């Protein structure tokens, strides 16, 4: 029992409620949001080290015995994700200060951010499958607010699609949980793992596994369920886009990762083979989209789809190397996507357009932005020693170990397409002749945006260069995912 597990969830929740008061005072709103996130981040870091030193931490609400109460479990996987989430949220909120606009800031922008963080951290931490649904709803409700806030024409068109698709997938989620409960008779995730192992995963459980893959696949945007992502995300203003791109699809990826390493592990010849092929097609579809568009937002959005494919390819290998690689790549992708969306936001604010053909010559007016963009682009493609390298290396190694030689080579080869897609932004926007632009924000304002962006890119460089220091954490996470008994024992047999 350790109540500490809950702090990274409760603190943003509490500040979200407090910030519902005093919508008039910008200083209170901004200060409160920042203070709350920093406080939550400190608690998440100390939780991370507790998990590292003392193993999996858990708390069951109301002191009920284990499979009956709602358990919250903080293992290495969730502690790492929670810490990264809060770290990125701090910089995205900082970025919002001078970009989101005071009209939105006066209308529940910061409470919505805090609620979305509550939901994301809750979904990462929960050890109960129905409770995971509840936290998904919390983060979705807040994301509906954020995507529609401002009420511009594009936002309304994008949010209708977003809300509809998420309502459908949430309904499917409850149905899938109901099917699982009807067969297994428990909702505690560790207990589900044990019960499925006892009955040796009959065919009906495999069907439910595919249903779960559909539900989480809709949220994570895998092939062929990613169709809603580009239009909905493109509607959001840059800071919100950075938050969504860095966090929301990753919750779906985490859910697939968790269910496919903890529950459905007895018929991998079917389920994980399916996941493998879907992830390969996801990467392919993402690459086609990323290369086809001349819209900077769309290019990076399709790169989310590619990254989701790469991470799930690592999960599909179902060996320790592949899973460790998936963890490495998941955290890398959260950081680098936040950085890229923030950079692209600055480019859009500077040029007043998202169309690459109308940009050019930014290198003359803002060289630092250009070089930082180049670093972020190299990091995304995984050029050593930047952050994407280690994850992709381990994922490919896991693929070779599992005997999936050709698909692993394919994943490696697509790195070149990823690099090409983001370098196109560099070539079109930064090189060439300067073109007439209608800047949305002044230079002084975009400089303010650049500070948090630069820090996130420096963090991503540190993540790549300092991979050696992170390896103990990542190998713990990989071992935990590869061997469900660690998780199960910690939840069911712990004190």
């Amino acid at each position, binding site marked *: 029992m350790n109540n500490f597990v809950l702090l990274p969830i*409760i603190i943003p929740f509490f500040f979200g409620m407090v910030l519902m008061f005093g919508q008039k005072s910008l200083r209170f709103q901004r200060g409160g949001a920042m203070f709350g996130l920093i406080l939550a981040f400190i608690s998440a870091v100390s939780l991370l080290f507790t998990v590292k030193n003392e193993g999996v931490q858990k*708390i069951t609400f109301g002191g009920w015995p284990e499979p009956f109460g709602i358990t919250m479990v903080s293992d290495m996987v969730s502690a790492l994700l929670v810490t990264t989430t809060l770290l990125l949220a701090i910089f995205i909120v900082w970025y919002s200060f001078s970009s989101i606009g005071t009209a939105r800031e006066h209308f529940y922008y910061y409470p919505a951010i805090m609620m979305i963080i509550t939901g994301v951290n809750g979904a990462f931490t929960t050890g109960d499958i129905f409770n995971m649904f509840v936290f998904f709803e919390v983060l979705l409700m807040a994301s509906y607010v954020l995507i529609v806030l401002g009420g511009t024409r594009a936002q309304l068109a994008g949010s209708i699609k977003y809300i509809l698709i998420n309502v459908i997938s949430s309904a499917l989620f409850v149905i899938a949980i109901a099917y699982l409960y009807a067969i297994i008779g428990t909702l505690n995730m560790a207990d589900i793992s044990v019960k499925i192992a006892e009955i040796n995963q009959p065919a009906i459980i495999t069907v439910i596994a595919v249903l779960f893959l559909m539900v989480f696949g809709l949220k994570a945007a895998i092939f062929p369920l990613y169709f809603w992502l580009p239009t909905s995300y493109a509607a959001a203003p840059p800071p919100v886009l950075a938050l969504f791109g860095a966090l929301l699809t990753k919750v779906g990826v985490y859910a697939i990762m968790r269910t496919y390493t903890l529950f459905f592990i007895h018929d991998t010849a079917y389920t994980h083979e399916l996941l493998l092929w879907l992830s390969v097609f996801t990467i392919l579809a993402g690459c086609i989209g990323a290369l086809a568009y001349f819209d900077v937002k769309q290019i990076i959005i399709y790169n989310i789809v590619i990254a989701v494919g790469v991470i799930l390819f690592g999960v599909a290998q179902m060996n320790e190397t592949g899973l460790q690689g998936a963890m490495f790549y998941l955290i890398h992708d959260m950081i680098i996507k936040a950085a890229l969306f923030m950079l692209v936001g600055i480019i859009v604010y500077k040029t007043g357009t998202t169309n690459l053909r109308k940009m050019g010559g930014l290198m003359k007016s803002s060289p630092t932005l250009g070089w930082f963009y180049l670093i972020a682009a190299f990091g995304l493609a995984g050029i050593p020693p930047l952050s994407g390298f280690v994850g992709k290396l381990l994922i490919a190694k896991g693929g070779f170990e599992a005997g999936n030689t050709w698909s692993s080579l394919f994943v490696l080869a697509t790195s070149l397409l990823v690099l090409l897609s983001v370098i196109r932004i560099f070539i079109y926007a930064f090189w060439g002749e300067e073109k007439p632009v209608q800047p949305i924000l002044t230079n002084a304002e975009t400089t303010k945006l650049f500070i948090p962006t630069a820090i996130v890119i420096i963090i991503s460089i540190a993540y790549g260069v300092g991979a050696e220091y992170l390896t103990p954490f990542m190998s713990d996470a990989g071992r935990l995912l590869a061997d469900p008994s660690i998780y199960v024992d910690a939840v069911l047999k712990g004190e």
Partner: protein
Amino acid sequence: MKTNDVIIQFTAKIVFFIIFFFAIHIFLAGHYTPGGGFVGGLLASSAIVLLVLAFDINTVRTIIPVTYTTLTACGLIIALATASFPMLLGDPFFTHYFDYFTLPLIGKTSLHTAMLFDTGVFLVVVGVTMTIIQTIGEDE
């Protein structure tokens, strides 16, 4: 055109209290018997909606001068405070306490911290329902 709504206004004034006290009854009946903060809150907001129908939003706003979003936030804080209070005592989150007390007039009663949590839920439900109805109703 001026409509004649004397009857509905007169009835609403009386029925409002009947519904509201029934809401309180349902709210207090919760925990051991069917009821609780959620249905209680819905009933209470239906009583307020009846007033809105009989009179109009601005009149009701002067009768009940509450900002409903603030009410929601207060409810959430009460609920969270009740749930996290056990953490200070070293018990797991959401642990509830109860005991029997002999109160004047009522006699032996069980008091349960779950009721405090339900008070939060009650306020949240009233706050959210009324915010939704006001937002739709104002749009003329």
